[in-house]
């Protein structure tokens, strides 16, 4: 029997989600800690959104609130999909509001997979995909990506991984944690593969407003005909610094969305009117705040890249998102050993790469969700530690 090197076995990651929470808890013991782990922007929700929400919520505390979300919000989401993603979605039948992006991810996976179904997942990937697929009794089939290729999702490798049991293809762009962006050409090839093999595309667009170096984001469902077999998720969390509000959405064709609606209703009923009116205030307001955050993240990315260059660590150049995935194999440590060491000795929280795929246990994820001076300080602490050892 031969093994196809581009069809990796669904090995369990080396590090569980619980371990990441353990690191976060440990970090809280250090008053001088710098947290570059979790993807929670340091920015508070912009004041104009809070003010608009506060005004709206005075008039409403209860209203018909179906599991798919209040209609004005679904209309606003449809407008955002049209304007930003070039996706046409009927707010009546093709959008379901969720309790945040992670909830959207979980619901989407449960709706798309039956037990035993295979889903192609580019590695590295956000750790919750593993948990959601396992919950659905699906089979995660890893499609490796490589730092030498800036973590490009190669359509040829995806094609090699397809079997008669394959039902889904996950497309996360910009990717978390690798920060790679799927090019228009690759999106076209991947969506064509999905069409030819009758796969449902699960598109995660959560970082679609954060791209660098002039790159473009291409939503798979924006291509002609692709919407018919694509579920797209997004949320207000990252783009408006609204992580705590827990408001996301899934968009897709009506024939897939009825199942999404049923699953969402079964898991959590309706979404809080607080979150929905917060999102409505954000989506109906100006986008200046997003531009400001884009500019800040671009500057921060430079700070982290320069720091890593000084440390001699290689990394995939972040094309989008809010993090850098860096190779620490030169230290001789596993990712968890390195993260624990840096946390204990430098009081800097990083996420170990093993949490994003077993093959990435010699990487760390660094978020740039702190001010530039804090990022510089964190990298300086790590440099002192590495030079000392």
């Amino acid at each position, binding site marked *: 029997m031969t093994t196809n090197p581009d069809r990796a076995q669904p090995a369990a990651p080396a590090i569980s989600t619980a371990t990441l929470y353990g690191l976060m808890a440990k970090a809280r013991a250090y008053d001088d800690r710098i947290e570059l782990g979790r993807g929670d922007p340091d920015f508070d929700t912009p004041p104009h959104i809070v003010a608009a929400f506060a005004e709206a919520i005075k008039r409403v505390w209860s209203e018909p609130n179906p599991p798919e979300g209040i209609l004005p919000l679904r209309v606003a989401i449809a407008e955002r999909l049209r304007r930003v993603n070039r996706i046409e979605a009927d707010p009546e039948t093709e959008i379901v509001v969720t309790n945040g992006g992670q909830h959207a991810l979980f619901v989407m996976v449960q709706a798309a997979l039956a037990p035993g179904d295979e889903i192609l997942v580019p590695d590295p990937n956000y750790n919750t995909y593993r948990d959601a697929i396992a919950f659905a009794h699906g089979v995660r089939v890893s499609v490796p990506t490589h730092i030498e290729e800036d973590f490009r999702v190669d359509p040829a490798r995806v094609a090699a991984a397809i079997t008669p049991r394959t039902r889904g293809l996950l497309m996360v762009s910009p990717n978390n944690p690798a920060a790679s962006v799927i090019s228009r050409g690759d999106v076209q090839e991947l969506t064509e593969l999905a069409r030819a093999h009758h796969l449902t595309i699960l598109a995660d667009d959560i970082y679609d407003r954060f791209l660098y170096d002039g790159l473009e984001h291409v939503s798979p469902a924006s291509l002609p005909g692709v919407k018919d077999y694509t579920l797209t998720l997004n949320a207000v969390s990252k783009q408006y610094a609204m992580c705590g509000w827990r408001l996301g959405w899934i968009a897709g064709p009506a024939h897939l969305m009825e199942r999404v609606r049923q699953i969402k209703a079964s*898991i*959590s009923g309706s979404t809080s009117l*607080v979150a929905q009116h917060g999102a409505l205030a954000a989506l109906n307001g100006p986008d200046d705040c997003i531009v400001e955050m884009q500019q800040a993240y671009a500057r921060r990315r430079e700070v982290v890249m320069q720091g890593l260059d000084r440390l001699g660590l290689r990394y995939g150049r972040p094309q989008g998102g809010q993090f850098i995935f860096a190779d620490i194999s030169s230290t001789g440590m596993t990712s968890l050993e390195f993260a624990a060491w840096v946390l204990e000795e430098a009081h800097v929280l990083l996420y170990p790469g093993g949490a994003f795929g077993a093959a990435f246990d010699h990487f760390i994820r660094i978020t740039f969700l702190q001010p530039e001076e804090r990022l510089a300080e964190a990298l300086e602490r790590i440099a002192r530690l590495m030079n000392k050892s």
Partner: protein
Amino acid sequence: MTHTSSSPIESAARAYGWSPITDYPPFYMPAEIREGMIQALARGETHYAPVPGVPALREALARYLATLGWRLKADGNTVITNGEQEARFLAIQALCRDGKILALPAQAHPGVAQAAGVGQVQTISMPGSQDGSPEPDIAAILTALERGADVLYLESPHRLTGKAFEADELAAIAAAIEAADARVIWDQSLASLVRPDRRYVSPGAIAALAARCLALAALWPTLGMEEYQLGYIAGDEALIQPIQTLRQIIGICTTTPAQWAAVAGAEHMANLLQERLTELTLTQEQGLAFLQQARVTPLDGDTVAYLAFRAPWPRGASLLAELTQVGFLVASGEPFGAPDVVRLTTTSRLLAL
């Protein structure tokens, strides 16, 4: 779970600013709750909350649960959820994955079967009581345990009739659960709405049961916060731990500003709950008198929230229209598995009778 009501009810809701939700008696939400939330936003409470919930809210929850007889710590024993349906889903899935068998009442809140329907939870059904009422009795519970149930789902007070288990029934359930080494998920959403002349016995007050029980409900009763979608799960630390893990996976945490609204609400609940219980008691008496005039005999129930009755009833559909006009919120028993039962939720409008 929201059951949208018929158009007269929705009209009333619009006219009076009442909640259209029939699961709970509708009340105005005190302005201080909204103000508390806005103040929290102003100080930057817009980020992820801790997975189990904002500590101040869990402290308030632990104090509230103590009034129901539970002795639980905020930290380690409680999880705040995005509404009661999410609480149902988390409790069922955390206890019943890995081949465990869940016994469900044949007649229960429709959200129970929905929550168990995701994934591959094995279920068996517990029929209603031998006397014909919708709630399972101790015989039905024992039969379910004999059939191999690992986990029971119970509602007390029942979500269709408001009937609560008596003290001797709880003692029998506790003994049966202990003997079978089973666990219980206990919907106690209506616990604080039990009529003042009835005594509610909480599973938290019986040590053998409390150690094997996860309690769940919506937050907070009678404060008009239903659509802020807050719920909780509480219980022994060993049972709560897998809930926290699954809670993180399905959505990280519960809406932070809504949790701060509930923190503000907790300060008002002790006073308002008593006031509103008194009001509901009065309105329910009015409603009972109306039903007697209409020659309708309610099913046995223990809360001020509901009156339920079974078909056939006089005047058929015209009576239902009349009931909505006078101020009841009317729900069909069909989604609960009891198509011949009608549930009436009491409202302040009944005072006009």
